[in-house]
Protein backbone atom coordinates (compact mmCIF):
# COMPACT_ATOMS: atom_id res chain seq x y z
CA UNK A 1 0.00 0.00 0.00
CA UNK A 2 1.33 3.40 -0.87
CA UNK A 3 1.02 5.15 2.52
CA UNK A 4 3.37 2.69 4.19
CA UNK A 5 5.78 2.71 1.30
CA UNK A 6 5.88 6.47 1.27
CA UNK A 7 6.23 6.53 5.03
CA UNK A 8 9.24 4.25 4.89
CA UNK A 9 10.93 6.19 2.16
CA UNK A 10 10.35 9.38 4.09
CA UNK A 11 11.75 7.78 7.25
CA UNK A 12 14.79 6.56 5.33
CA UNK A 13 15.29 10.03 3.93
CA UNK A 14 15.01 11.48 7.43
CA UNK A 15 17.66 9.12 8.78
CA UNK A 16 19.97 10.34 6.07
CA UNK A 17 19.21 13.97 6.91
CA UNK A 18 19.31 13.78 10.69
CA UNK A 19 16.66 13.27 13.34
CA UNK A 20 13.10 13.01 12.01
CA UNK A 21 10.59 15.72 12.79
CA UNK A 22 8.70 15.11 16.02
CA UNK A 23 5.41 15.49 14.16
CA UNK A 24 4.82 15.63 10.45
CA UNK A 25 1.56 15.50 8.55
CA UNK A 26 0.87 15.57 4.84
CA UNK A 27 -2.57 16.55 3.61
CA UNK A 28 -4.08 14.87 6.69
CA UNK A 29 -7.84 14.46 6.41
CA UNK A 30 -10.77 13.13 8.37
CA UNK A 31 -14.34 12.97 7.17
CA UNK A 32 -16.96 11.51 9.49
CA UNK A 33 -19.74 9.52 7.92
CA UNK A 34 -23.04 10.30 9.58
CA UNK A 35 -26.68 9.68 8.81
CA UNK A 36 -26.83 13.22 7.41
CA UNK A 37 -23.99 12.60 4.99
CA UNK A 38 -20.26 13.20 5.16
CA UNK A 39 -19.04 15.73 7.67
CA UNK A 40 -15.50 16.93 7.00
CA UNK A 41 -13.63 17.64 10.26
CA UNK A 42 -10.06 17.97 9.01
CA UNK A 43 -9.55 18.99 5.39
CA UNK A 44 -5.89 18.56 4.50
CA UNK A 45 -3.54 19.69 7.26
CA UNK A 46 0.23 19.91 6.83
CA UNK A 47 2.31 20.25 9.97
CA UNK A 48 6.01 20.06 10.68
CA UNK A 49 7.02 20.19 14.33
CA UNK A 50 10.66 19.77 15.34
CA UNK A 51 11.98 18.06 18.44
CA UNK A 52 11.91 20.27 21.51
CA UNK A 53 9.38 22.62 20.02
CA UNK A 54 6.28 23.89 21.84
CA UNK A 55 3.71 23.97 19.06
CA UNK A 56 0.17 25.25 19.32
CA UNK A 57 -2.95 24.52 17.30
CA UNK A 58 -5.16 27.53 17.81
CA UNK A 59 -8.74 27.76 16.67
CA UNK A 60 -12.32 28.04 17.80
CA UNK A 61 -14.34 25.04 18.98
CA UNK A 62 -15.11 22.71 16.12
CA UNK A 63 -12.10 23.84 14.06
CA UNK A 64 -10.77 20.27 13.86
CA UNK A 65 -8.06 20.53 16.51
CA UNK A 66 -9.16 17.56 18.61
CA UNK A 67 -9.69 15.41 15.54
CA UNK A 68 -6.14 16.25 14.44
CA UNK A 69 -4.76 15.30 17.86
CA UNK A 70 -6.91 12.17 17.75
CA UNK A 71 -5.29 11.12 14.48
CA UNK A 72 -1.77 11.89 15.71
CA UNK A 73 -2.36 9.85 18.87
CA UNK A 74 -3.80 6.89 16.88
CA UNK A 75 -7.28 7.07 18.40
CA UNK A 76 -8.88 8.48 15.26
CA UNK A 77 -8.25 6.83 11.89
CA UNK A 78 -7.48 9.32 9.12
CA UNK A 79 -9.53 9.14 5.95
CA UNK A 80 -6.79 10.72 3.88
CA UNK A 81 -3.19 11.90 3.91
CA UNK A 82 -0.45 10.73 6.24
CA UNK A 83 1.02 11.50 9.62
CA UNK A 84 4.20 10.55 11.42
CA UNK A 85 4.98 11.00 15.09
CA UNK A 86 8.59 10.53 16.18
CA UNK A 87 9.20 9.34 12.62
CA UNK A 88 6.61 6.56 12.86
CA UNK A 89 3.54 6.28 10.63
CA UNK A 90 0.48 6.58 12.88
CA UNK A 91 -1.62 4.23 10.73
CA UNK A 92 1.03 1.63 9.95
CA UNK A 93 2.42 1.30 13.49
CA UNK A 94 0.02 2.72 16.10
CA UNK A 95 1.62 0.72 18.93
CA UNK A 96 5.03 2.17 18.08
CA UNK A 97 3.54 5.64 18.23
CA UNK A 98 1.70 4.98 21.51
CA UNK A 99 4.96 3.89 23.14
CA UNK A 100 6.53 7.24 22.36
CA UNK A 101 3.79 9.69 23.22
CA UNK A 102 2.06 11.08 26.26
CA UNK A 103 -1.50 12.26 25.81
CA UNK A 104 -3.86 14.38 27.85
CA UNK A 105 -7.26 14.40 26.16
CA UNK A 106 -9.98 16.91 26.92
CA UNK A 107 -11.89 14.48 29.09
CA UNK A 108 -11.07 13.44 32.61
CA UNK A 109 -9.97 9.92 31.72
CA UNK A 110 -8.51 9.11 35.14
CA UNK A 111 -9.23 5.60 36.36
CA UNK A 112 -12.03 6.38 38.82
CA UNK A 113 -11.72 3.00 40.52
CA UNK A 114 -8.15 3.78 41.60
CA UNK A 115 -6.37 6.19 43.92
CA UNK A 116 -4.04 8.97 42.78
CA UNK A 117 -0.97 6.81 43.41
CA UNK A 118 -2.51 3.78 41.72
CA UNK A 119 -3.40 5.81 38.65
CA UNK A 120 0.28 6.63 38.22
CA UNK A 121 1.55 3.19 39.22
CA UNK A 122 -0.64 1.28 36.83
CA UNK A 123 -0.01 3.67 33.97
CA UNK A 124 3.72 3.17 34.57
CA UNK A 125 3.22 -0.57 34.49
CA UNK A 126 1.19 -0.36 31.28
CA UNK A 127 4.30 1.26 29.84
CA UNK A 128 6.55 -1.56 30.95
CA UNK A 129 7.90 -0.55 34.36
CA UNK A 130 8.14 -3.22 37.02
CA UNK A 131 5.91 -2.85 40.11
CA UNK A 132 8.69 -1.45 42.32
CA UNK A 133 9.98 0.92 39.68
CA UNK A 134 6.41 2.03 38.99
CA UNK A 135 5.91 2.83 42.65
CA UNK A 136 9.06 4.93 42.68
CA UNK A 137 8.07 6.80 39.52
CA UNK A 138 4.58 7.42 40.93
CA UNK A 139 6.08 8.91 44.10
CA UNK A 140 8.36 11.15 42.07
CA UNK A 141 5.47 12.40 39.92
CA UNK A 142 3.24 13.00 42.93
CA UNK A 143 5.90 15.14 44.61
CA UNK A 144 6.72 17.10 41.48
CA UNK A 145 3.08 17.85 40.76
CA UNK A 146 2.24 18.83 44.33
CA UNK A 147 -0.25 16.04 44.91
CA UNK A 148 1.52 14.75 48.03
CA UNK A 149 -1.41 15.04 50.40
CA UNK A 150 -3.84 13.55 47.89
CA UNK A 151 -1.85 10.43 47.13
CA UNK A 152 -4.37 8.09 48.75
CA UNK A 153 -7.44 9.95 47.52
CA UNK A 154 -9.67 8.25 44.98
CA UNK A 155 -9.50 9.88 41.55
CA UNK A 156 -13.19 10.73 41.88
CA UNK A 157 -12.46 12.99 44.86
CA UNK A 158 -10.03 15.37 43.13
CA UNK A 159 -10.80 18.97 42.27
CA UNK A 160 -10.71 20.04 38.63
CA UNK A 161 -7.21 21.48 38.92
CA UNK A 162 -5.85 18.47 40.79
CA UNK A 163 -7.35 16.10 38.25
CA UNK A 164 -5.75 18.04 35.43
CA UNK A 165 -2.36 17.94 37.13
CA UNK A 166 -2.69 14.22 37.69
CA UNK A 167 -3.64 13.74 34.04
CA UNK A 168 -0.50 15.58 32.95
CA UNK A 169 1.63 13.70 35.50
CA UNK A 170 0.19 10.44 34.19
CA UNK A 171 1.14 11.31 30.62
CA UNK A 172 4.77 11.67 31.71
CA UNK A 173 5.35 8.28 33.36
CA UNK A 174 7.57 7.05 30.55
CA UNK A 175 9.24 10.25 29.29
CA UNK A 176 7.28 10.60 26.05
CA UNK A 177 9.06 11.89 22.98
CA UNK A 178 6.04 14.00 22.17
CA UNK A 179 3.47 15.26 24.65
CA UNK A 180 -0.02 16.00 23.32
CA UNK A 181 -2.26 18.28 25.33
CA UNK A 182 -5.79 18.81 24.09
CA UNK A 183 -7.23 21.98 25.65
CA UNK A 184 -5.35 21.41 28.91
CA UNK A 185 -6.70 24.45 30.70
CA UNK A 186 -10.29 24.52 29.42
CA UNK A 187 -12.72 24.98 32.27
CA UNK A 188 -10.07 25.79 34.88
CA UNK A 189 -10.07 28.92 37.00
CA UNK A 190 -7.48 31.57 36.02
CA UNK A 191 -5.14 30.83 38.92
CA UNK A 192 -5.01 27.12 38.21
CA UNK A 193 -4.48 27.88 34.55
CA UNK A 194 -1.45 30.05 35.22
CA UNK A 195 -0.15 27.34 37.52
CA UNK A 196 -0.42 24.80 34.72
CA UNK A 197 1.31 27.18 32.33
CA UNK A 198 4.27 27.26 34.73
CA UNK A 199 4.46 23.47 34.67
CA UNK A 200 4.32 23.38 30.88
CA UNK A 201 7.04 26.01 30.60
CA UNK A 202 9.37 23.96 32.79
CA UNK A 203 8.68 20.86 30.71
CA UNK A 204 9.43 22.82 27.57
CA UNK A 205 12.65 24.20 29.07
CA UNK A 206 13.72 20.63 29.73
CA UNK A 207 13.42 19.91 26.02
CA UNK A 208 10.02 18.23 26.03
CA UNK A 209 8.33 18.43 22.62
CA UNK A 210 4.76 19.56 23.17
CA UNK A 211 1.78 19.92 20.86
CA UNK A 212 -1.02 21.82 22.49
CA UNK A 213 -4.44 22.73 21.22
CA UNK A 214 -6.25 25.67 22.65
CA UNK A 215 -9.00 28.08 21.83
CA UNK A 216 -7.49 30.67 24.15
CA UNK A 217 -5.47 33.22 22.18
CA UNK A 218 -3.47 34.31 25.17
CA UNK A 219 -2.57 30.73 26.01
CA UNK A 220 -1.07 30.10 22.59
CA UNK A 221 0.70 33.44 22.72
CA UNK A 222 2.05 32.85 26.24
CA UNK A 223 3.36 29.33 25.69
CA UNK A 224 4.02 28.37 22.11
CA UNK A 225 7.14 28.75 19.97
CA UNK A 226 5.06 28.35 16.87
CA UNK A 227 1.35 28.35 16.22
CA UNK A 228 -0.90 27.07 13.49
CA UNK A 229 -4.18 28.94 13.26
CA UNK A 230 -6.86 26.38 12.38
CA UNK A 231 -10.41 26.94 11.24
CA UNK A 232 -12.88 24.68 9.45
CA UNK A 233 -10.33 21.85 9.36
CA UNK A 234 -7.63 23.83 7.58
CA UNK A 235 -4.45 25.61 8.66
CA UNK A 236 -4.98 29.26 7.84
CA UNK A 237 -1.47 30.34 8.78
CA UNK A 238 1.48 29.00 10.74
CA UNK A 239 4.55 30.52 12.31
CA UNK A 240 5.79 32.30 15.39
CA UNK A 241 3.48 34.87 16.92
CA UNK A 242 5.58 37.64 15.38
CA UNK A 243 5.60 35.98 11.97
CA UNK A 244 1.86 35.58 12.08
CA UNK A 245 1.35 39.19 13.00
CA UNK A 246 3.71 40.38 10.28
CA UNK A 247 2.70 37.83 7.66
CA UNK A 248 -0.99 38.52 7.63
CA UNK A 249 -0.46 42.28 7.43
CA UNK A 250 -2.92 42.52 10.23
CA UNK A 251 -1.91 45.36 12.29
CA UNK A 252 -4.29 47.35 14.35
CA UNK A 253 -7.93 46.65 13.61
CA UNK A 254 -10.33 49.53 14.10
CA UNK A 255 -14.03 48.78 13.98
CA UNK A 256 -16.71 51.44 14.05
CA UNK A 257 -20.41 50.63 14.27
CA UNK A 258 -22.91 53.30 13.26
CA UNK A 259 -26.57 53.71 14.17
CA UNK A 260 -27.67 52.98 10.60
CA UNK A 261 -26.31 51.13 7.54
CA UNK A 262 -23.17 52.51 5.99
CA UNK A 263 -23.38 53.89 2.41
CA UNK A 264 -20.90 52.71 -0.24
CA UNK A 265 -17.54 54.43 -0.26
CA UNK A 266 -17.78 55.93 3.20
CA UNK A 267 -14.16 55.09 3.97
CA UNK A 268 -12.88 55.34 0.41
CA UNK A 269 -10.26 57.91 1.32
CA UNK A 270 -8.78 55.55 3.95
CA UNK A 271 -8.68 52.55 1.60
CA UNK A 272 -6.29 54.33 -0.74
CA UNK A 273 -3.59 54.85 1.87
CA UNK A 274 -0.43 52.70 1.76
CA UNK A 275 -0.53 52.10 5.53
CA UNK A 276 -4.02 50.63 5.30
CA UNK A 277 -4.18 46.92 4.53
CA UNK A 278 -7.87 46.75 3.79
CA UNK A 279 -11.21 48.28 4.59
CA UNK A 280 -14.30 46.15 5.10
CA UNK A 281 -17.82 47.46 5.12
CA UNK A 282 -20.59 45.26 6.48
CA UNK A 283 -24.06 46.84 6.87
CA UNK A 284 -23.70 49.28 9.80
CA UNK A 285 -20.02 48.54 10.34
CA UNK A 286 -16.67 49.64 8.92
CA UNK A 287 -13.47 47.81 9.76
CA UNK A 288 -10.02 49.18 8.93
CA UNK A 289 -6.79 47.15 9.07
CA UNK A 290 -3.86 49.52 9.35
CA UNK A 291 -0.26 49.89 10.41
CA UNK A 292 -0.75 53.52 11.42
CA UNK A 293 -3.83 53.69 13.59
CA UNK A 294 -3.34 57.29 14.67
CA UNK A 295 -6.24 59.47 13.59
CA UNK A 296 -8.13 56.71 11.78
CA UNK A 297 -10.87 56.56 14.38
CA UNK A 298 -11.34 60.33 14.21
CA UNK A 299 -11.60 60.18 10.44
CA UNK A 300 -14.22 57.43 10.59
CA UNK A 301 -16.26 59.47 13.04
CA UNK A 302 -15.97 62.55 10.86
CA UNK A 303 -16.77 60.63 7.65
CA UNK A 304 -19.83 59.20 9.37
CA UNK A 305 -20.94 62.63 10.59
CA UNK A 306 -20.69 64.12 7.09
CA UNK A 307 -22.86 61.22 5.81
CA UNK A 308 -25.37 61.84 8.57
CA UNK A 309 -24.38 58.76 10.63
CA UNK A 310 -23.87 58.71 14.37
CA UNK A 311 -21.39 56.30 15.92
CA UNK A 312 -22.84 53.63 18.17
CA UNK A 313 -19.56 52.11 19.32
CA UNK A 314 -15.95 51.73 18.29
CA UNK A 315 -13.15 49.29 19.12
CA UNK A 316 -9.46 49.34 18.47
CA UNK A 317 -7.57 46.05 18.66
CA UNK A 318 -3.80 46.13 18.90
CA UNK A 319 -1.92 43.57 16.79
CA UNK A 320 -2.47 40.21 18.44
CA UNK A 321 -3.51 36.72 17.53
CA UNK A 322 -7.02 38.05 17.68
CA UNK A 323 -6.38 40.50 14.86
CA UNK A 324 -4.55 37.74 12.99
CA UNK A 325 -7.63 35.57 13.24
CA UNK A 326 -9.83 38.47 12.22
CA UNK A 327 -7.69 39.12 9.17
CA UNK A 328 -7.52 35.47 8.17
CA UNK A 329 -11.17 34.60 8.59
CA UNK A 330 -13.00 37.92 8.48
CA UNK A 331 -14.80 36.70 11.57
CA UNK A 332 -14.37 37.86 15.10
CA UNK A 333 -12.76 35.31 17.35
CA UNK A 334 -15.11 33.84 19.88
CA UNK A 335 -13.78 31.49 22.51
Amino acid at each position, binding site marked *: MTPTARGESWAAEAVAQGPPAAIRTQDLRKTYKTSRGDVPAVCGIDLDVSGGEFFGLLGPNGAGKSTTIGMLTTLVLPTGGQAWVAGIDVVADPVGVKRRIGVV*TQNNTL*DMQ*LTVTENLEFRSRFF*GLGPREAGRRAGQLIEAFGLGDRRKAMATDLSGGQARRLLIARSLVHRPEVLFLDEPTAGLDPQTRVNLWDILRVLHDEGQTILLTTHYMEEAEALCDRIAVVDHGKVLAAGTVDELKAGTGADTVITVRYESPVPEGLAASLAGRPSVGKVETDRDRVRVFTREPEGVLGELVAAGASAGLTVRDATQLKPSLETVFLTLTGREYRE
Partner: protein
Amino acid sequence: MTSTIRTTAAPAADGKAAVPAASGIAALIAGAPTPQPTMTKTFAAMMARELRVLRRNAIATFTRAVMQPLLFVFVFTYVMPKIGGGVFLGGGAAGGGTTFATILVPGLMASMLLMQGIMAVTFPLVMEFSWQRTIEDRALAPVPISVLAIQKITAGAAQSFIGALIVFPIVLVVHAAGQAPHVHVTNWPLLALILLTASLLTAALGLLLGTIMDPRKMQMLFAAILLPATMLGCVYYPWSALHHIRWLQIAVLVNPMVYMSEGLRAVLTPGTGHMALWAILLVLVGGTVVFGYLGARTFTRRVLN
Protein backbone atom coordinates in the same frame (compact mmCIF):
# COMPACT_ATOMS: atom_id res chain seq x y z
CA MET B 1 -14.91 27.94 44.60
CA THR B 2 -11.65 29.70 45.28
CA SER B 3 -8.45 28.15 44.19
CA THR B 4 -5.86 27.34 46.81
CA ILE B 5 -3.19 26.82 44.23
CA ARG B 6 -0.38 29.33 44.18
CA THR B 7 1.85 30.33 41.37
CA THR B 8 5.04 30.50 43.39
CA ALA B 9 7.25 27.50 43.84
CA ALA B 10 7.09 27.53 47.63
CA PRO B 11 5.34 24.65 49.36
CA ALA B 12 1.90 25.64 50.55
CA ALA B 13 1.71 26.21 54.27
CA ASP B 14 -1.53 24.30 54.74
CA GLY B 15 -0.26 21.50 52.53
CA LYS B 16 -3.67 21.49 50.80
CA ALA B 17 -2.42 22.25 47.35
CA ALA B 18 1.31 22.25 47.31
CA VAL B 19 2.61 23.89 44.19
CA PRO B 20 4.68 21.90 41.76
CA ALA B 21 8.28 22.94 42.14
CA ALA B 22 10.07 23.71 38.91
CA SER B 23 13.08 21.63 39.95
CA GLY B 24 10.85 18.64 40.68
CA ILE B 25 9.23 18.86 37.26
CA ALA B 26 12.59 19.25 35.58
CA ALA B 27 13.94 16.19 37.40
CA LEU B 28 10.99 14.20 36.08
CA ILE B 29 12.22 14.66 32.57
CA ALA B 30 15.91 14.34 33.27
CA GLY B 31 15.53 11.32 35.54
CA ALA B 32 12.80 9.56 33.62
CA PRO B 33 13.01 5.79 33.26
CA THR B 34 13.22 4.30 29.77
CA PRO B 35 10.84 1.37 30.00
CA GLN B 36 10.67 -1.35 27.39
CA PRO B 37 6.99 -2.20 27.21
CA THR B 38 6.02 -5.57 25.78
CA MET B 39 2.57 -6.89 25.12
CA THR B 40 2.92 -9.40 27.95
CA LYS B 41 4.00 -6.79 30.50
CA THR B 42 1.17 -4.45 29.56
CA PHE B 43 -1.38 -7.26 29.59
CA ALA B 44 -0.17 -8.45 32.99
CA ALA B 45 -0.31 -4.89 34.34
CA MET B 46 -3.90 -4.55 33.16
CA MET B 47 -4.84 -7.80 34.86
CA ALA B 48 -3.11 -6.60 38.03
CA ARG B 49 -5.23 -3.47 37.86
CA GLU B 50 -8.42 -5.59 37.64
CA LEU B 51 -7.29 -7.61 40.63
CA ARG B 52 -6.66 -4.45 42.65
CA VAL B 53 -10.15 -3.15 41.86
CA LEU B 54 -11.72 -6.53 42.56
CA ARG B 55 -9.99 -6.68 45.93
CA ARG B 56 -11.14 -3.18 46.78
CA ASN B 57 -14.74 -4.04 45.92
CA ALA B 58 -14.52 -7.56 47.35
CA ILE B 59 -17.42 -7.24 49.79
CA ALA B 60 -19.78 -5.70 47.25
CA THR B 61 -18.82 -8.25 44.62
CA PHE B 62 -19.19 -11.13 47.05
CA THR B 63 -22.60 -9.96 48.25
CA ARG B 64 -23.75 -9.47 44.69
CA ALA B 65 -22.60 -12.99 43.82
CA VAL B 66 -24.05 -14.71 46.85
CA MET B 67 -27.45 -13.20 47.55
CA GLN B 68 -29.47 -14.29 44.53
CA PRO B 69 -28.50 -17.98 44.52
CA LEU B 70 -28.58 -18.17 48.32
CA LEU B 71 -32.12 -16.88 48.54
CA PHE B 72 -33.15 -19.01 45.62
CA VAL B 73 -31.98 -22.30 47.09
CA PHE B 74 -33.26 -21.26 50.51
CA VAL B 75 -36.80 -20.69 49.23
CA PHE B 76 -37.00 -23.58 46.78
CA THR B 77 -35.08 -26.34 48.52
CA TYR B 78 -35.71 -25.45 52.16
CA VAL B 79 -38.83 -23.32 52.62
CA MET B 80 -41.01 -24.85 49.91
CA PRO B 81 -40.45 -28.52 50.87
CA LYS B 82 -41.02 -27.59 54.56
CA ILE B 83 -44.36 -25.96 53.90
CA GLY B 84 -45.39 -28.79 51.64
CA GLY B 85 -45.18 -26.98 48.35
CA GLY B 86 -42.18 -28.81 46.94
CA VAL B 87 -41.57 -28.25 43.29
CA PHE B 88 -42.92 -31.16 41.36
CA LEU B 89 -40.92 -32.34 38.44
CA GLY B 90 -42.86 -34.23 35.85
CA GLY B 91 -41.67 -37.53 34.46
CA GLY B 92 -39.14 -37.71 31.71
CA ALA B 93 -35.44 -37.86 32.16
CA ALA B 94 -35.54 -35.65 35.21
CA GLY B 95 -38.15 -37.68 36.97
CA GLY B 96 -37.69 -40.41 39.48
CA GLY B 97 -35.77 -39.59 42.59
CA THR B 98 -34.24 -36.34 41.38
CA THR B 99 -34.53 -33.54 43.92
CA PHE B 100 -35.04 -29.98 42.79
CA ALA B 101 -31.71 -29.13 44.44
CA THR B 102 -29.99 -31.50 42.04
CA ILE B 103 -31.46 -29.56 39.14
CA LEU B 104 -30.54 -26.25 40.70
CA VAL B 105 -26.84 -26.88 41.46
CA PRO B 106 -25.63 -26.72 37.85
CA GLY B 107 -28.40 -24.31 36.84
CA LEU B 108 -27.63 -21.68 39.43
CA MET B 109 -23.90 -21.98 38.81
CA ALA B 110 -24.52 -21.38 35.12
CA SER B 111 -26.79 -18.46 35.83
CA MET B 112 -24.09 -17.02 38.08
CA LEU B 113 -21.54 -17.36 35.28
CA LEU B 114 -23.74 -15.31 32.98
CA MET B 115 -24.60 -12.71 35.60
CA GLN B 116 -20.97 -12.18 36.64
CA GLY B 117 -19.68 -12.17 33.09
CA ILE B 118 -22.12 -9.42 32.15
CA MET B 119 -21.59 -7.45 35.37
CA ALA B 120 -17.82 -7.64 35.06
CA VAL B 121 -17.57 -6.69 31.39
CA THR B 122 -20.71 -4.96 30.13
CA PHE B 123 -21.33 -2.51 32.97
CA PRO B 124 -17.80 -1.08 33.19
CA LEU B 125 -17.59 -0.94 29.41
CA VAL B 126 -20.78 1.06 29.03
CA MET B 127 -19.38 3.52 31.59
CA GLU B 128 -16.04 3.72 29.79
CA PHE B 129 -17.72 4.55 26.51
CA SER B 130 -20.05 7.13 28.02
CA TRP B 131 -19.45 10.89 28.12
CA GLN B 132 -15.94 11.07 29.56
CA ARG B 133 -14.73 8.21 27.35
CA THR B 134 -12.37 6.89 30.02
CA ILE B 135 -11.72 4.04 27.59
CA GLU B 136 -9.17 6.40 25.96
CA ASP B 137 -6.92 5.90 28.97
CA ARG B 138 -6.55 2.18 28.29
CA ALA B 139 -6.63 2.70 24.52
CA LEU B 140 -3.41 4.73 24.77
CA ALA B 141 -1.51 1.86 26.40
CA PRO B 142 1.13 0.51 24.03
CA VAL B 143 -0.82 -2.51 22.76
CA PRO B 144 -3.17 -3.04 19.81
CA ILE B 145 -6.83 -2.33 20.57
CA SER B 146 -7.68 -6.00 19.94
CA VAL B 147 -5.43 -6.95 22.87
CA LEU B 148 -7.52 -4.65 25.05
CA ALA B 149 -10.61 -6.56 23.97
CA ILE B 150 -8.96 -9.88 24.80
CA GLN B 151 -7.90 -8.51 28.17
CA LYS B 152 -11.49 -7.48 28.92
CA ILE B 153 -12.72 -10.98 28.06
CA THR B 154 -9.99 -12.61 30.17
CA ALA B 155 -10.70 -10.45 33.20
CA GLY B 156 -14.46 -10.96 32.84
CA ALA B 157 -14.05 -14.72 32.49
CA ALA B 158 -11.93 -14.83 35.64
CA GLN B 159 -14.61 -13.01 37.63
CA SER B 160 -17.29 -15.22 36.18
CA PHE B 161 -15.30 -18.32 37.13
CA ILE B 162 -14.80 -17.06 40.68
CA GLY B 163 -18.54 -16.32 40.92
CA ALA B 164 -19.39 -19.90 40.03
CA LEU B 165 -16.94 -21.24 42.62
CA ILE B 166 -18.58 -19.07 45.31
CA VAL B 167 -22.05 -20.31 44.41
CA PHE B 168 -21.13 -23.99 44.40
CA PRO B 169 -20.86 -24.61 48.19
CA ILE B 170 -23.98 -22.56 48.81
CA VAL B 171 -26.24 -24.52 46.51
CA LEU B 172 -24.65 -27.70 47.77
CA VAL B 173 -25.25 -27.06 51.46
CA VAL B 174 -28.49 -25.10 51.75
CA HIS B 175 -31.51 -27.44 51.61
CA ALA B 176 -34.08 -29.15 53.87
CA ALA B 177 -33.50 -32.65 55.16
CA GLY B 178 -33.99 -35.21 52.42
CA GLN B 179 -33.70 -32.58 49.70
CA ALA B 180 -29.95 -32.90 49.20
CA PRO B 181 -28.64 -32.57 45.63
CA HIS B 182 -26.97 -35.61 44.12
CA VAL B 183 -23.69 -34.24 42.89
CA HIS B 184 -21.26 -36.74 41.49
CA VAL B 185 -18.19 -35.60 39.61
CA THR B 186 -16.31 -38.29 37.76
CA ASN B 187 -14.43 -36.22 35.22
CA TRP B 188 -12.64 -33.28 36.86
CA PRO B 189 -10.73 -32.09 33.78
CA LEU B 190 -14.02 -31.98 31.88
CA LEU B 191 -15.61 -29.97 34.70
CA ALA B 192 -12.72 -27.52 34.52
CA LEU B 193 -13.04 -27.30 30.73
CA ILE B 194 -16.79 -26.65 30.85
CA LEU B 195 -16.40 -24.00 33.56
CA LEU B 196 -13.58 -22.34 31.67
CA THR B 197 -15.27 -22.25 28.27
CA ALA B 198 -18.59 -21.18 29.80
CA SER B 199 -16.82 -18.31 31.64
CA LEU B 200 -15.13 -17.19 28.46
CA LEU B 201 -18.41 -17.36 26.56
CA THR B 202 -20.21 -15.13 29.07
CA ALA B 203 -17.36 -12.61 29.04
CA ALA B 204 -17.33 -12.58 25.22
CA LEU B 205 -21.09 -12.01 25.26
CA GLY B 206 -20.55 -9.28 27.84
CA LEU B 207 -18.05 -7.54 25.57
CA LEU B 208 -20.39 -7.64 22.59
CA LEU B 209 -23.33 -6.35 24.65
CA GLY B 210 -21.19 -3.63 26.23
CA THR B 211 -20.12 -2.30 22.85
CA ILE B 212 -23.56 -2.32 21.22
CA MET B 213 -25.69 -1.27 24.21
CA ASP B 214 -26.98 2.27 24.37
CA PRO B 215 -26.05 3.47 27.89
CA ARG B 216 -29.47 5.09 28.25
CA LYS B 217 -31.16 1.74 27.76
CA MET B 218 -29.22 -0.23 30.34
CA GLN B 219 -32.31 -1.34 32.20
CA MET B 220 -33.31 -3.15 29.01
CA LEU B 221 -30.38 -5.46 29.62
CA PHE B 222 -32.23 -7.16 32.47
CA ALA B 223 -35.66 -7.23 30.91
CA ALA B 224 -34.70 -8.13 27.37
CA ILE B 225 -31.60 -10.25 27.83
CA LEU B 226 -30.68 -11.49 31.31
CA LEU B 227 -34.17 -12.44 32.45
CA PRO B 228 -35.25 -14.41 29.35
CA ALA B 229 -31.78 -15.97 29.04
CA THR B 230 -32.05 -17.27 32.61
CA MET B 231 -35.72 -18.27 32.69
CA LEU B 232 -35.45 -20.02 29.33
CA GLY B 233 -31.89 -21.22 29.89
CA CYS B 234 -32.55 -24.62 31.48
CA VAL B 235 -31.46 -23.24 34.83
CA TYR B 236 -34.53 -24.46 36.72
CA TYR B 237 -35.26 -27.55 34.64
CA PRO B 238 -33.14 -29.85 32.50
CA TRP B 239 -33.34 -29.51 28.76
CA SER B 240 -34.42 -33.15 28.32
CA ALA B 241 -37.52 -32.46 30.44
CA LEU B 242 -38.66 -29.92 27.86
CA HIS B 243 -39.63 -32.71 25.47
CA HIS B 244 -43.17 -32.20 26.73
CA ILE B 245 -43.13 -28.84 24.96
CA ARG B 246 -41.29 -29.74 21.80
CA TRP B 247 -41.40 -26.29 20.18
CA LEU B 248 -39.87 -24.72 23.29
CA GLN B 249 -37.22 -27.42 23.51
CA ILE B 250 -36.14 -26.46 19.99
CA ALA B 251 -36.59 -22.71 20.44
CA VAL B 252 -34.33 -22.50 23.52
CA LEU B 253 -31.42 -23.89 21.51
CA VAL B 254 -30.61 -20.34 20.38
CA ASN B 255 -29.95 -19.42 24.00
CA PRO B 256 -26.25 -19.83 24.92
CA MET B 257 -27.30 -20.17 28.58
CA VAL B 258 -28.81 -23.59 27.80
CA TYR B 259 -25.40 -25.02 26.95
CA MET B 260 -23.81 -23.67 30.11
CA SER B 261 -26.52 -25.17 32.32
CA GLU B 262 -26.50 -28.46 30.44
CA GLY B 263 -22.70 -28.55 30.35
CA LEU B 264 -22.49 -28.25 34.13
CA ARG B 265 -25.34 -30.73 34.48
CA ALA B 266 -23.34 -33.22 32.41
CA VAL B 267 -20.29 -32.99 34.67
CA LEU B 268 -21.85 -32.30 38.10
CA THR B 269 -25.13 -34.23 38.12
CA PRO B 270 -24.84 -36.75 35.29
CA GLY B 271 -27.71 -38.74 36.81
CA THR B 272 -30.20 -36.08 35.74
CA GLY B 273 -29.84 -36.62 32.06
CA HIS B 274 -28.39 -33.96 29.82
CA MET B 275 -27.81 -32.79 26.30
CA ALA B 276 -25.13 -34.49 24.20
CA LEU B 277 -21.67 -33.42 25.28
CA TRP B 278 -20.41 -32.72 21.76
CA ALA B 279 -23.21 -30.22 21.18
CA ILE B 280 -22.45 -28.50 24.48
CA LEU B 281 -18.73 -28.17 23.82
CA LEU B 282 -19.29 -27.13 20.22
CA VAL B 283 -21.47 -24.22 21.29
CA LEU B 284 -19.35 -23.20 24.28
CA VAL B 285 -16.12 -23.11 22.26
CA GLY B 286 -17.67 -21.93 18.99
CA GLY B 287 -19.76 -19.31 20.76
CA THR B 288 -16.71 -17.93 22.54
CA VAL B 289 -14.89 -17.60 19.23
CA VAL B 290 -17.82 -16.05 17.36
CA PHE B 291 -18.99 -13.65 20.10
CA GLY B 292 -15.37 -12.86 21.02
CA TYR B 293 -14.61 -11.97 17.41
CA LEU B 294 -17.75 -9.87 16.99
CA GLY B 295 -17.20 -8.17 20.36
CA ALA B 296 -13.57 -7.35 19.59
CA ARG B 297 -14.61 -5.96 16.22
CA THR B 298 -17.29 -3.61 17.53
CA PHE B 299 -15.02 -2.71 20.45
CA THR B 300 -12.21 -1.67 18.10
CA ARG B 301 -14.65 0.32 15.96
CA ARG B 302 -15.97 2.19 18.95
CA VAL B 303 -12.53 2.97 20.35
CA LEU B 304 -11.16 4.20 17.03
CA ASN B 305 -13.72 6.49 15.50
